[in-house]
């Protein structure tokens, strides 16, 4: 998909993902070994009252679903991103929870410094089984221009 083909307001469901306790602990042992991410017993006595996923795990699963959606056709993912803004972890993600992720294009502009590329901004969300917002951020991606 080219920069010119991308429409502001285009929204796509990226699918659902269920977080298991084993995966939550494995991710956190590698990257975020705080007690409430790796130790179910200690987590009971934390402010969260139980084991919760690292926020970076919740974010990484967004990427996983985004790549799968792109490979299936449709979702925009350029492969290269300069970063993101305003990532919010609004509710804890607990073992057994299923999150449903989505992405929506909110802004596009040509890059002055790289005329062969445009910048796309997207609003990305994950919601729980009740539809409550759990996670959100504004993503950025470079997309090739036709001209």
């Amino acid at each position, binding site marked *: 998909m080219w920069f010119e083909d991308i429409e502001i307001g285009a929204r796509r469901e990226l699918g659902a993902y269920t977080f298991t306790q084993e995966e939550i602990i494995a991710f956190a042992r590698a990257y975020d070994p705080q007690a409430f991410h790796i130790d179910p017993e200690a987590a009971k006595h934390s402010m969260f009252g139980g084991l919760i996923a690292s926020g970076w795990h919740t974010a990484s699963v967004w990427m996983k679903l985004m790549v799968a959606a792109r490979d299936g056709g449709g979702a925009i993912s350029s*492969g290269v991103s300069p970063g993101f803004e*305003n990532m919010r972890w609004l509710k804890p993600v607990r073992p057994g929870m299923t999150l449903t992720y989505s992405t929506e294009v909110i802004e596009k502009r040509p890059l002055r410094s790289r005329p062969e590329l445009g910048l796309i901004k997207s609003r990305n969300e994950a919601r729980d089984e009740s539809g409550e917002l759990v996670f959100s951020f504004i993503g950025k991606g470079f997309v090739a221009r036709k001209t």
Partner: protein
Amino acid sequence: MTLLHFEDFRAGQVYDCGAHEITKDEIVAFARAFDPQPQHLDEDAGQRSLLGGLAASGWQVCAIGMRLFADGLILKSANKGGSRVQECRWIKPVKPGDRLRLDAHVVETNISRSRPDVGFVTFEWRIYNQEEQVASVILTPILGRREPGGA
């Protein structure tokens, strides 16, 4: 061990959180699990991309930043968790063999208006490679517990 509390942090402080050398196997394993795009899996595909060679997923760079920040600071502090990242910039591609070092800069400290027992410490993580180039910058407020009875 005495834990660091909100009162111990001052704008302008810099905490050296150590370094991690990333291997090709780590890059590929993370990419297979979370970001299976060709430039994170394959050297030739990386060469053809804007990244100029096999490079780590930006999400892995964030995760490694979290690990360094945890080992270097968070596990030594009365931390109550983070809730947000204001901004993350992926500036330089991270390649196999790169040694990533994290400095955590204290940008500002604010006492919570709604909860007087906690305060926010806003950190800027600066992740450098072995050539002292900034590979990534991440701005994140962390909720810290105030010293009991502290001013």
